[in-house]
């Protein structure tokens, strides 16, 4: 595991996972996860489908039991004292279904009453969160009429209702259209700005980069990387660049490109476009560009495909898949 930056850990960190593991029969969904999230930070919990992200979140929210290890929220063991542990959190897990016979207002009232909110608080908070997720006009409609995206918005609204100190979000933009995704990201960013702790799983790297300070990468139930987004991006050495030439590249050109220092792989994507995997960070990219020009190739465009963090993500996932 590569640890770039560790946040200061307090005794009652919002999230502390210790040797957390889970087996479903003979299948190991989670091996022995150790992870701590410090107060006021936002962690992006990344990994491909089946990596163990949802399993971790379900253990944290007491939906499933760990096979070993423990999950503690604000220092309270979720398994031993679920009511106390869950009191300060708001959660969106997968795309939850709601009771179709209730309206959003009634649904929020149900959740709020279970949490002991007063009628006055419930009224004002319900209005505020429904406005935040743009469901005000639908506040009194039965949920059975709602689309998946509307249900996802309501899920986010109910997670914010009691102004939780910790938000646990399992792929919160799942099921939303691009505009809805952007709106939800804005909501999460504003919560982050308010100093709330956010634990957000996603398989969308861009989303995590946009919203989170820290990132933890999981695959096959194992933690591969944990660190701050900024440090990991800076530290990532390899990137993929797409170069487009004025004239189609000949086999000799491709061979010459492959021979340039720092070039790890050359993959033609059309007659005049090639994708180059380059090491050496930004200086390496500059050297390769100089090499192309020196060889007489007329470069029209030269642009990175995805971020360096994305490349790091893909590399680590591939590496872990090979093992």
């Amino acid at each position: 595991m590569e640890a770039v930056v560790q946040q200061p850990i307090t005794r009652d960190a919002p999230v502390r996972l210790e040797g957390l593991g889970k087996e479903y029969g003979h299948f190991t969904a989670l091996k022995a996860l150790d992870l701590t999230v410090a107060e006021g930070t936002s962690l992006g919990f990344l990994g491909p489908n089946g990596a163990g992200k949802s399993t971790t979140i379900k253990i944290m929210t007491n939906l499933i039991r760990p096979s070993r290890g423990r999950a503690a929220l604000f220092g309270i063991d979720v398994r031993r004292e679920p009511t106390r542990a869950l009191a300060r959190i708001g959660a969106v897990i997968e795309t939850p279904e709601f009771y179709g016979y209730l309206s959003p207002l009634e649904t929020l009232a149900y959740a709020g009453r279970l949490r002991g909110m007063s009628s006055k608080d419930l009224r004002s908070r319900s209005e505020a969160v429904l406005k935040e997720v743009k469901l005000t006009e639908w506040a009194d409609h039965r949920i059975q009429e709602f689309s998946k995206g509307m249900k996802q918005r309501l899920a986010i609204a109910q997670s914010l209702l009691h102004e939780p100190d910790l938000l646990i979000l399992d792929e919160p933009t799942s099921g939303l259209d691009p505009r809805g995704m952007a709106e939800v990201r804005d909501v999460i960013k504003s919560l982050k700005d308010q100093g709330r702790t956010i634990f957000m799983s996603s398989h969308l790297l861009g989303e995590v980069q946009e919203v989170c300070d820290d990132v933890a990468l999981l695959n096959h139930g194992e933690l591969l990387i944990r660190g701050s987004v900024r440090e990991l991006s800076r530290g990532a050495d390899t990137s993929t660049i797409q170069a487009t030439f004025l004239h189609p590249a000949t086999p000799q050109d491709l061979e010459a490109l492959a021979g340039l220092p720092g070039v790890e792989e050359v993959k033609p994507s059309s007659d005049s476009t090639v994708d180059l995997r380059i090491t050496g960070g930004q200086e390496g990219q500059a050297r390769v560009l100089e090499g192309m020009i020196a060889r007489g190739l007329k470069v029209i465009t030269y642009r990175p495909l995805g971020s360096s963090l994305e490349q790091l993500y893909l590399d680590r996932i591939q590496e872990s898949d090979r093992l």
Partner: protein
Amino acid sequence: MTPSPLAQIVTVAAYEIRKYIRGRRLLGMLILLGLIVGLFVGLPPALGIKYASTPDAFISTFATFSGLLVVLGGVLFAADALVSEHEKRTGYFLFPNPVRREVLVLGKIVASLIVCTAVLSLYYGAAAIAALIITGSLTWEVGLSYLYTLGYMTAVVGVAYLLSALLKGTVAATVLTFFLFTLIFSIIGGILPRANVEPWFIPTSASGIIANALGGPAVRPGPGGGDVGFIPDPATSLLVFAGYAIAGGVLAILWYGRRELAS
């Protein structure tokens, strides 16, 4: 601050009752109830048959159907109460709240008992009013039969909750609850006496006290058309009802508390 478990039970029960009121099940049950009462009251004069002359005899015809209403109540208002949270994925909304699983189950059981009691009370209330109008009197035995019906209902609800906690699908839970009380228990209760075993512990056999309280048929023919049936005495029957209700409810709470919401 998280409210007390009792306050949470009341909240869960209130929302469950709202579900039954807004759903079509309660409406369907009330229509069925109206149909049964209408047939019992309207059919005899239409066919030129005289009504029974005593209130007990009049209501005993209603009482023979109350067992079926109890089972339908268990099927419609209890059997899928727990399993549906998993199958319909509403558990992803409900379970991450600071509320213990046993509190959720208790709240749902309370709601089921209230709704079933309301339906059976309406049924017996309608029968009692009809008896009062037609025969001009009522007896305490009618009230006793009603109380026995409620006792049987608690047993059915308890078992329905256990099946709801154990099974993976709503269809399996509702179908099994229905056939357990209309077929399986009846078959066992009918066959055991032939092997010289008194089926006092079978709830459908014990439910015979509902009609018996009104001087109804004390003998229940077995599946082979046999002439010997067995109905335990009221005290034993009530203990049997309580046993099934408590065992079913407690096991449902224990099992559901361990059940995972994995997929």
